[in-house]
């Protein structure tokens, strides 16, 4: 994944979006992202799974709280979500996202700056989100190690390289 500039249309969500809302437990029998993606965020709105392709989710506090299920991340990837920007993340979800190659950015204050359908650009080098107004919204830089894992496509892709399997 090329992480220089990530552009996408915004989908705004609220606070405390938990892993059961992102992917209800009854779908844990699947492990294929495409299949899981058909149910991404269906707990919030049954029409959402088909509306997430190419989107950047902008959410409130504690996104991804609850269980350690990695299936929740796979569902969002499968539905086509490009990145998630939130006021804050629950920590296991945050790690699972990075480890599956999904870009997650903590940007306190971002939620009041955007609305559904806005086009934003995430610039990792400058640690800034370009808003439709032209304003540059800064976030705390993501560590090099983390960017590296996402660029490689996730933790297991990194592991493959470390083991000389590719």
């Amino acid at each position, binding site marked *: 994944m090329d992480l220089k500039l990530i552009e996408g249309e915004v989908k705004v969500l609220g606070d*405390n979006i*938990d892993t*059961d809302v992102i992917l209800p*437990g009854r779908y844990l*029998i699947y*492990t294929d992202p495409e299949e899981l993606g058909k149910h991404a965020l269906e707990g919030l709105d049954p029409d959402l799974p088909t509306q997430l392709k190419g989107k950047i989710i902008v959410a409130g*506090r*504690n996104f991804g*709280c*609850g*269980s*350690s*299920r*990695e*299936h929740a*991340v796979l569902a969002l990837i499968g539905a086509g979500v490009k990145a998630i920007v939130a006021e*804050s*993340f*629950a*920590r*296991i979800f945050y*790690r*699972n996202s990075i*480890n*599956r190659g999904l870009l997650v950015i903590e940007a306190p204050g971002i939620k009041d700056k955007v609305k559904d359908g806005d086009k934003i650009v995430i610039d990792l080098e400058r640690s800034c989100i370009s808003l439709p107004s032209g304003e540059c919204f800064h976030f705390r830089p993501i*560590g090099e*190690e*983390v960017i590296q*894992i996402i660029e490689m496509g*996730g*933790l*297991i892709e*990194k*592991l*493959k390289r*470390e*083991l000389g*399997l590719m």
Partner: protein
Amino acid sequence: MQSLTARILARASGKSKVEPGEVVIANVDKIVLTDATGPMAVDILEKLGVRLTHPADVYIFLDHYSPSPSISASNIHIRLRKFAKAYRVPNLFDVGEGISHQIMVEGIVRPGEVVVGADSHTTQYGALAAFATGVGSSEAAYAMVMKKLWFKVPEPLFIKLTGSLPPYASGKDVILSILSTLGPDGANYRALEFLGPGLKSLSMSERLTIANMSVEGGAKNAIFPLDDIVIGYFEELGISLDLERLGYLKEPAIDKFDYTVDLSTIEPMVAKPHNPANSVPVSEVEGVKIDVAFIASCANGKYEDLVVASRILKGRKVSKDVRLIVTPASKRVLVKALQDGLIQILLEAGAIVTPPGCGACFGANLGVVGDYEVAISSTTRNFTGRMGSPKAQVYLASPATVAASAIEGCIADPRRYLR
């Protein structure tokens, strides 16, 4: 002064000092897999086709579906047993042995170790002055192969404990009270470090419950210092610790605490539906009618939990309208409770005693809660649908409060029974 968590992560990453926010690559001593999230890790390893360099440091537990209630769960068990054989993992704890988190503290985890588990309640081992945290399946797989993992050194949240815990209150009441202050994300990413003179009145059993449920406030880990209670706990297990080497785990001198908790003011607490942080003193919910009561889980299915429940239930009867289901956390707990006569007391009072495992806490078996039922439970979480029907109402409380409520048929104050 460095937090206990930072000290452990510094040593594990070969550094003399690490700062909160810094990302380190730390050696992992032990890795825990269960039958809930383990299969996805096994998938990854089998696809990679790599061998495990340290299979003896991997611990696999068949505890979430124990014994299996369905064909699909049985098939997952078959798969994990095959994996353990093929990858030479000697430590597979089969159905009936008990919950991973209980067995890991029965002599496997040591102070100062870095332990990861593909389960959020892995935080429990922090009671033994270890760094322990929950991870996803990919990370568990990565750690199984590389024996290391990246960690952002967490910002500590220092909690000063003062006073002495009253005999009618427990670790469950302490953590529910702290969660009600912190809220569901008040400890997000943080290392909860429990310090102060009040530690002397907290037994290992209470500490395990507190460390376990710290994750309900979002904590990355919880940790207690290496003190006489930890040392005594290991002595009882027949394990002598190298105290000179572990000196860095003694209580650090902290100038500024984030919170102070006076243990002598803790009263019996109850978490209302549907979050553990939604806790109130028992007096606010007394009289709420219940259908089912549980004494179970990694948080409160320990021997000491059965002791307090038996004390209350001895010579009394569970209300005829209530089912009281007791699921010991491990076989060791069950055997000790049997030898000491606790199981007989519980059965004579009208309780149902099940084999060890995660049981109803995970909503998979051993007493799944039905539509519109009201439960009071000593388990870990009361999220919507967690223990069964999304239409059920689950209240969390200490084993004492659960036992008292089972007798009265409604949420009851255990202080009447603990004079």
